[in-house]
């Protein structure tokens, strides 16, 4: 038996609103839905007239609905906002590449500019590559930290006042996170069910594949619990948000203050921001560095540095032996300087964790131990090992006739090699973050 629309428009109701229990027809639901978001915006003064606002767009249901509603309201109520879309490409094959197509569709449908920033460009690593290092256990930590900062960086590039995110009431009841550049959440009092119904009735195209690296793990337990609670008592979502918003913090409790990360010079709540710590871990081959307690991280770093120092000692010992011309290689007396050279070079390469092609080149290029000593000093002392290495090798190859023919190719391949190497050899200056 049809239920009439509670607004009294004479039409049949199409859905029951979880927040109020009202039964409404499509048109009255659209109006209620949009008007509530308008009130959220007006009441909390989320925007000022003339603001540029970046909508964080993932192609998912929330950001798609947000973009649609903001465009609608901006026109209907004349907010005077300059809206644009900002997307982050985490580099997840089979997930983000597809969802970005949806965002591009949004860009065309809503006639907004779109800026896409990739983890690869910002951090030198795609999520595919990070997962190859860290496995599937803590990968979401990297993704979450990087995304939050990437959005801030994108917002800075676009020169916007704030970032509008599609977090809905259910999301906020589940988590409740904040960023550094002002975030606004126009959908924060909007139920997930209504967002999905709105998208369905408006025939909005959105992307709904789960992330390939987090199947079902999307805040799994909290989410399932909340959905179970919502089934029994729909207002519980609002109750949780209310308790979060009215939570009082005692005056003596010190809250994190906003400062500048000493490494990347971007806003941070710590001396070194979480993104830089995670990145250092990745680049030093210690991917778990930024995960868990900071005391643990400190210990890991100390061990890493101790290992590095050990390696230097070993290399310099071998060098000393070499000078005395009685070096030992694999338990036997080394027969020539040449062999010693190779041995030392290999030690070094392990230290630098570079690839085999580069190793080969160096084996052939490095011919005298004095030159190796120079190289070694570069490695031992300077943190810019890769760059120094390149310069020295180039210099040497031009002296060496064997290599003149292939000089150009050699250089190119070396440079490529070095580019590939910086990802894994611990160079913080390899972060090509230009702002």
């Amino acid at each position: 038996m049809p239920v009439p629309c509670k607004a009294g428009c004479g039409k049949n109701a199409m859905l029951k609103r979880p927040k109020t229990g009202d039964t409404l027809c499509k048109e009255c639901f659209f109006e209620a839905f949009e008007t509530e978001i308008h009130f959220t915006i007006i009441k909390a003064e989320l925007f000022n007239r003339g603001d540029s606002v970046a909508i964080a767009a993932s192609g998912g249901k929330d950001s798609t609905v947000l973009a649609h509603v903001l465009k609608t309201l901006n026109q209907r109520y004349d907010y005077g906002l300059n809206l644009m879309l900002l997307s982050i490409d985490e580099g997840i094959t089979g997930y983000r590449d597809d969802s970005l197509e949806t965002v591009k569709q949004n860009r065309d449908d809503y006639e907004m500019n779109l800026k896409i920033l990739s983890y690869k460009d910002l951090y030198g690593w795609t999520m595919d590559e990070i997962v190859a290092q860290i496995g599937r256990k803590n990968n979401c930590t990297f993704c979450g930290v990087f995304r939050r900062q990437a959005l801030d960086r994108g917002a800075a590039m676009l020169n916007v006042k704030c970032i509008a995110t599609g977090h809905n009431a259910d999301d906020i009841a589940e988590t409740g996170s904040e960023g550094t550049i002002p975030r606004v959440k126009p959908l924060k009092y909007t139920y997930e069910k209504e967002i999905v119904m709105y998208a369905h009735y408006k025939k909005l195209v959105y992307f709904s594949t789960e992330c390939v690296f987090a199947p079902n793990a999307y805040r799994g337990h909290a989410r399932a619990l909340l959905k179970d609670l919502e089934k029994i008592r729909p207002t519980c979502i609002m109750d949780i948000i209310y308790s979060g918003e009215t939570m009082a913090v005692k005056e003596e409790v010190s809250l994190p203050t906003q400062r500048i990360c000493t490494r990347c010079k971007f806003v941070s709540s710590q001396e070194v921001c979480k993104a830089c710590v995670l990145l250092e871990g990745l680049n030093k081959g210690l991917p778990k560095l930024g995960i868990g307690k900071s005391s643990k991280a400190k210990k890991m770093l100390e061990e890493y540095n101790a290992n590095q120092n050990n390696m230097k000692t070993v290399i310099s010992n071998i060098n000393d032996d070499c000078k005395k011309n009685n070096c030992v290689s694999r338990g036997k007396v080394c027969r020539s300087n040449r062999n010693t050279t190779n041995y030392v070079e290999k030690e070094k390469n392990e230290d630098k964790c570079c690839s085999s092609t580069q190793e080969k080149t160096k084996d052939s290029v490095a011919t005298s131990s004095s030159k190796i000593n120079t190289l070694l000093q570069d490695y031992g002392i300077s943190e810019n090992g890769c760059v120094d290495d390149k310069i020295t090798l180039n210099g040497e190859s031009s002296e060496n006739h064997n290599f003149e023919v292939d000089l150009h190719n050699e250089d190119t391949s070396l440079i490529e090699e070095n580019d590939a190497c910086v990802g894994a050899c611990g160079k913080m200056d390899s972060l090509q973050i230009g702002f």
Partner: protein
Amino acid sequence: MENSLNIHIHFGGGAELLFDKIKKHVVELPAARKYFPDTDIEKWRIKELLQWIKDNLLKERPELFLQGDSVRPGILVLINDADWELFGELEYELQNNDEITFISTLHGG
């Protein structure tokens, strides 16, 4: 066919991933008495349809679609494009040519 029903079943919002990524299915339900021979069930309601879907359409991870004798909370059910909460949810009696839509809200946004 006596008492058989033609039903359109749609999956969306990611729910289709559990059904071979096929969004639209047209199915013919046999008489309820035949499908549930050892019970006194005579009519197809949403409750029975869910059982049938579990037996015939659901390809993987049934716990992501069903919970107890209902859908997992967070999956919306529409009967002829209207919220099933308006029609008695599991108790709604299916009519010939009904369109039943399942939309997951559980995927990231």
